[in-house]
Structure formats: structure tokens, C-alpha cells
């Protein structure tokens, strides 16, 4: 087995020796498949987004946070969808969207930071690996790398960090630096690996994003604000749809930590779900030309407590929900090993139990969508994940 260290050294050697000179011709990547990971930070309340109306315990336990059931969107006999997600309802109807319920990261932790860490590092526990699973996967999908992965937004999310070079994009607010300055800095940075690599990748990303987006004006402002999700989704869609663009993108969206005044049909959570629905619809629209090859996966670090807390909100919980969307998704259904909301089935007496593992969800997508062999997935990308339980049924059309 290749140790992690060998793997990293090998990959970073490739990265450093690649010739990332300005004006580099932007060539098409060697896969047609598109994948977008949307990370909802703060812990989206899966029980509010996709209410399990068929569970006899639901309405009692959720007292205070219930939407009127005739005001939700029915998905099947047991599950419904919050009406703020109306913009993406059509994808469920056409069989291009699946809801995964009662899913969580492998480690039971109520810390945002640990749970996000496990979600993104792909290990069984927080802080076991320094790089992100999606970055490791990119290194396997295309060794020549550097034109596959795209971080949309100001920061590179941890899931995309690592030795495989990636591109990034955020709306510009001031004029780009002159070429001669970047050339001189390229020389000054040679002895500084961190700056050297970021500059090379940044310039290559600029060449790619510039060739796709050109001079189009996009909304600016604080990209960490949930209200900006649609802007990021639009950019991601355009950059992935283009032939010479990227293939894999990650977008973050915050605002899900609804400890107080979460609301039901209206309110904080409903507002955020509305922004999410609109953004996903925008992303899907932009990806239309490559829709058949597209999987969009929306995940969060944990679900929230089943019962309302003292402040009309919910605290950190366990099992949550995920969304799969795209022409390559075997959708039109809710995929769950539903654990029930009976008191004795609740995790710790208070949370929806988690019956499938986010690693298994990611593994399935990487295997079925990108043809990464399971052996490599379990060795290099999701170590110690052999027993991880996937959601039931077929998720990706192959």
C-alpha cells in the first residue's frame, strides 16, 4: 500500500514541476463528467428541509417548528420538502434529484469544526488527515491536474485543499495586476513554496476563468454571505459547462446554524432554504449543456436536534439530509434507511440517528461517476471506510 506520505510527495513533485507559465493554452480536461459539491456550513436542519411526515412521532416531537403539512411539497408517502425549495421541485419530478435522509459523517460529534473537518478530510475521525478528500480524488482523476478542480468563492474550502493544483474564482473588485509585476513576483517567490504555488495556480486559474467568463459583470460583495450563493452558483455553472473549463467545483454556503428563531414556513431557515433553492436552480440552468454528465451533491456537517430548544431554534444534532441533483442522478426518490423518530431510536435520546455515512455517499459518486476503482478509493481517498454504509439503491445513472 502506498503510504500517505509517498502519495503526497509524488503529487507535490508533479505540481511543482508543472510549467504554469502565463498565457498557458487552456486545454480541455480529460473527462466529460461534472461534479459540484455544495457544503452547507453550520448544520442544516434536515428535518425541516425534508419533513418525514410519514413518521408518526414527527409532529409531536417537532412542536413549535412545524410547517402546515398542506403547505409542504410531497415527495413520496413518507417525506415532503420545505416549500422554500420550490425552485428545485421540478428536478425531483423529472427524476433528476434524490434526497438522502438520516445521513451523517462517521464521527458522532456536536462540534461544527470537528464535524466539518471529518466531512472534508474523508477520514473516520477529525484531524486524521491534513488534506481534503476531493483534492485527493482530483489527483486520481487526472494526473496532469490543474484544470480539473475549481474553488468558487474567496477561500479554498478544506475539502479542496491539498497537493493537487486547483483553480479558484471569486468576483474581482479591483483591477488585475499587470503582467510584468506577476512575472517579477514569480521570480521573487521561487524560494517560497507556499507563495510560489499559489501564484502559479492563481495565474493559471485566471487564464481559464478569464477565457470562460470574459468581462461579464457579476455581483460583488461579501461572498461569505448566504445571499451571494446564487452569484457563486452562476459562476460555477458557467465555468464547468465550458469545454475548456473546470470539471469539479466546490461552493460553500453559510447561515444554517439556527439556534434561535429558526421559524417554520417563514423565518431564518426558510429564507436560507429559498436562497439555496434559487442558487441550485441557477447552477442547474447553467449546466444544461452538460446536464447528462452532471452530479451536484449538497451536504452539511450534521443535522439538528429533533425537538425545539428554549429559543425557538434547534441545537446541534446527528443525522441530517443531503441532496443529489443532476442529469446523471438516479433520482425521483428519497434514499434512506429511515431509523424512525421513536424515542428509543433517537441518537442520545434527542437526535435523528444516522444510518448512512457521507463517505459512502461520496465514494459511490466517485466510483460510479468518475470510475475511480474502489481499491483506490479505500486506500487513498477514504481510508478505513470499508464498512461505511451507503444510502440504499442506485444513486448515479451509469
Amino acid at each position: 500500500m502506498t503510504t500517505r506520505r509517498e502519495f503526497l510527495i509524488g503529487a507535490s513533485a508533479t505540481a511543482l514541476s508543472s510549467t504554469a507559465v502565463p498565457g498557458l493554452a487552456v486545454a480541455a480536461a480529460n473527462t466529460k463528467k461534472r461534479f459540484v459539491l455544495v457544503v452547507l456550513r453550520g448544520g442544516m436542519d434536515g428535518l425541516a428541509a425534508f419533513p418525514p411526515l410519514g413518521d408518526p412521532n414527527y409532529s409531536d416531537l417537532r412542536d413549535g417548528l412545524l410547517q402546515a403539512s398542506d403547505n409542504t411539497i410531497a415527495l413520496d408517502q413518507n417525506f415532503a420538502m420545505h416549500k422554500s425549495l420550490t425552485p428545485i421541485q421540478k428536478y425531483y419530478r423529472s427524476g433528476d434529484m434524490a434526497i438522502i435522509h438520516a445521513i451523517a459523517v462517521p464521527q458522532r460529534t456536536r462540534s461544527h469544526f470537528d464535524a466539518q473537518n471529518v466531512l472534508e478530510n474523508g477520514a473516520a475521525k477529525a484531524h486524521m488527515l491534513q488534506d481534503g478528500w476531493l483534492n485527493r480524488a482530483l489527483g486520481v482523476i487526472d494526473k496532469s491536474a490543474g484544470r480539473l478542480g475549481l474553488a468558487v468563492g474567496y477561500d479554498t474550502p478544506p475539502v479542496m485543499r491539498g497537493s493537487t493544483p486547483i483553480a479558484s474564482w471569486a468576483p474581482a473588485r479591483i483591477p488585475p495586476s499587470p503582467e510584468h509585476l506577476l512575472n517579477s513576483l514569480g521570480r521573487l517567490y521561487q524560494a517560497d513554496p507556499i507563495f510560489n504555488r499559489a501564484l502559479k495556480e492563481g495565474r493559471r486559474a485566471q487564464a481559464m476563468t478569464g477565457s470562460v467568463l470574459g468581462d461579464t459583470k457579476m455581483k460583488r460583495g461579501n461572498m461569505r454571505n448566504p445571499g451571494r450563493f446564487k452569484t457563486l452558483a452562476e459562476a460555477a455553472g458557467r465555468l464547468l459547462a465550458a469545454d475548456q473549463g473546470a470539471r469539479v467545483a466546490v461552493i460553500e454556503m453559510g447561515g444554517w446554524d439556527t439556534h434561535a428563531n429558526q421559524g417554520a414556513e417563514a423565518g431564518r431557515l426558510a429564507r436560507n432554504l429559498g436562497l439555496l433553492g434559487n442558487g441550485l436552480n441557477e447552477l442547474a440552468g447553467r449546466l444544461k449543456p452538460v446536464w447528462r454528465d452532471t452530479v451536484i451533491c449538497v451536504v452539511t456537517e450534521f443535522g439538528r436536534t429533533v425537538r425545539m430548544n428554549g429559543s425557538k431554534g434547534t441545537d446541534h444534532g446527528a443525522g441530517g439530509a443531503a441532496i443529489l441533483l443532476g442529469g446523471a442522478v438516479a433520482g425521483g426518490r428519497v434514499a434512506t434507511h429511515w431509523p424512525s423518530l421513536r424515542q428509543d431510536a433517537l441518537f442520545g435520546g434527542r437526535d435523528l440517528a444516522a444510518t448512512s455515512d457521507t463517505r459512502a455517499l461520496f465514494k459511490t459518486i466517485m466510483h460510479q461517476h468518475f470510475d475511480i476503482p474502489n481499491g483506490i478509493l479505500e486506500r487513498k481517498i477514504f481510508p478505513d471506510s470499508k464498512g461505511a454504509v451507503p444510502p440504499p439503491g442506485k444513486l448515479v445513472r451509469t
Partner: protein
Amino acid sequence: MTSVDAFIAANRFGLGPKRGYLGGIAADPQSWLLRQLGTEDGALPYFNDLPRSEEIIQEWMQARGSREMRKMFNKDRIRPLFFKEIRRRNRAAIETDTPFRERLVRFWSNHFTVSKTKGRIRGIAGAFEREAIRPYVAGNFAEMLVAVTKHPAMLVYLDNVSSIGPNSTVGLRRGRGLNENLAREILELHTLGVNGGYTQTDVIALAKMLTGWTVAPKRHSNAGGFWFNDRRHEPDSKTLLGRRYPEDGQQEAERALRNLAQHPSTAQFIATKLARHFVADNPPPAVVKQLQKKYLETNGNLGAMARELVALPAIWNKPLTKIKSPSGLVISAFRMLGPPDKPKHMIHALRLLGQLPFSAPSPAGWPDTAKDWISPESLLRRVELMDLLARRNTKRHDPVQLAEQALGPIARIETLTALKQAPSRRAALSLLLSSPEFQRR
């Protein structure tokens, strides 16, 4: 004659040299740092006339009548106040002669993050830092912890104002219960650290102890300040980390906070964070150990911790181990170049690099390592911003002279050569600001 030590003192511990400053501290860089811990807070004059948090909250209570009134109040009062706080804080950072102390204020303010991502915090985040952080940076950690936890900004930010003991008078009457947000973050982010050895049962116990800790209402004598409302307090004894706390109202949580402050996990957590901030992204374990020991020996005396940091050989041996944080870069650029023509230029710069004060994305605050700051996108943004500052300051400076002054012996030959060969003054200044020597500390 400047020295490597002077560079390290000014940058690793300070906010970067003001023009010519490096020479001034070269004689004895370590004493220069230590002096800043003993003296009174030099930045106080910048904040003298700003309102106290109680006053702001009282005004807010008066204005909350209708939706329209609230909107107007936010627009006409809170927004201008928020930016006034930031302008003062920026000016203090650019001008102060006790920059080590300012760094400590920023470090602790980040440790105990309150953020305008929760709208109601906007008007009082500055006051929070002035009232609950600034006075304690060379004092005792337990005192800061108690001051922070009692502060209205923290009680609101982490929802304790709406946490109610289920068996308290109010809880029984209204059927309401706990909100565990503050208790969890105290254990995870403020004291023990996530692996510090607590469980969900401890989170709930601390949340119960904290019930009743809230903000005094309009007609109360301490309106807008801390108030212990015993009608919301969960009765009976609680057990936290195996220690039993008999029913004692407000004192329970105070006692618990003081015990948490003495816990070895807290010592280790704080030692690690300080070492990461001042020594290296991955600090040597021996350094963390030494700081932890000092913490326990001095019962969490933060002045002693700061002095211990100054005494670490690991720091003085290695210049440039840390990359400047986005806000650290902006501050050091303005210190070197001189204050901006318009205060909003600095606000714009901080916003552009994603670190407008009091707006951290989560209660964990801003992350503190290069891998969080240097993405391909953010590096290009840094370079673009530095180029913009260079353009605005071309007439003020001779870039080569400035490099020699500010970087001293740290400036590499190739950097100085590149500056001399640059096609214009602006290009040279821009190169200096984006050079690794200036981008690191």
C-alpha cells in the same frame, strides 16, 4: 543599525514597523516588547468618547417600538457606529507605539469571537472588545473569561439570553427550555478545546448553570448590562466534569468558569493557540509544553504568558516563519506607508481581503495558519491590493530606501535588485509590498 531581532520584535510580535521605527527598537528589542506589557494601554485615547455597551443597548431598547423605528435606528445609529469603531481601531493599529499589546488585544478578541454575522451584534462588537478584552490582556485569563461571558454581546451572540431552565419559574410557566450554544462554545472554543475531555452531559450541565445570565431589561437599574434573572435559572445542583456544584444561583456558572480556567486542558489549548499565533503554524511541541507549564504555574496569568513568549529562543532563531494574516498585512502596509488619505481606504482593504473586523464567519474566529489565508485566489487578491496601495503612495516613498528601512537585514539581494530594476517607482513599491519578506512576519 537594525538587527534581525528588531525585525522579529516589530513584525512577529508587533504590527510591523512604522517608517524608521526598526532603528528605534534595535538597541534592545526584547525590553521594548516587555515594556509594552507593563505600561497602561496606550491605545485608550483612541476609544475614549465611544459609548459603552449598556448605553447602546438602552438606545436600542428605546428604538425598538416599530419595524420602521428599528430600521431607522440601524441605519442612522448602528451602522455609523460600527464603522466609527472600526475607524478608531484601525487608527490605533496604524499609530500605536505599543503594537505588541494591540496584537494581544486582537488575538484574544479573536479567541472570544463575537461577529456581526448575527445582526444585533453590530452595534456592540466594538464595545465588547473595549470592555471585556482590552483591559485583561496582561491580566488573568479567568477574569477575562468571566468578563466575556457576562458581556451582553457574548450572551446575545451565543443565544444565552434565550436559554431558560426547564424547571425554572419561567420555564415551567412557558414550557421553554435550554439553548446550549454558549455552554458548548465555552467548553470547545474558549476553555478546554474540543478534545479537552468533556461530554454532552457536561455541555448540558454548564448550560443549566448559565440559565438566568442575560441582559437587564429597560426599566432595570442596570438596563442594557449584565443581569442574573433567577426566575429563569434552572434549580438544583449540577455536575460538571465530575465536580458537583450545589444550587447557588449566579455563583454556579462563575465558579464553573473559574474552575474551567484552571483546567490543564485549557492551559494546553491556550498554549497551543498562542504558539501557533506567535511561533509557527505547527509549533514545536516543546514550546507548547513550556507555555502550558507557565500557564498552570501562574494560574493563567496572560502577562506572564506574553513574557514567556518573548523569552522563547524558538522565536528569535527564525524570522519569517509566519505568513501575515490578511488584516495583519493591511495594518503593516499602512504602518509602513503612512495612514491612508481617507479612513475608508483601510476599511475597503480589510474587506477586500475578507477580514473586516468583527465579522468572523463563526464563533471559532478567523483561522490562524497560512493554509487558511493563501489560496490561489486570495494571493492574487493580496497582490492586486498591494499594487493599489503602491499606486496611491508612489509620491511618498523611495521604495529601495523604504525596503532597507523596514526590512533591514532581512531584505534579500534578489529583492533589492528587483526593486532597483523595476520599470517604475510604483512597480518597485508594489514588489516590495508583495515580496515574501513583507508578506511574512
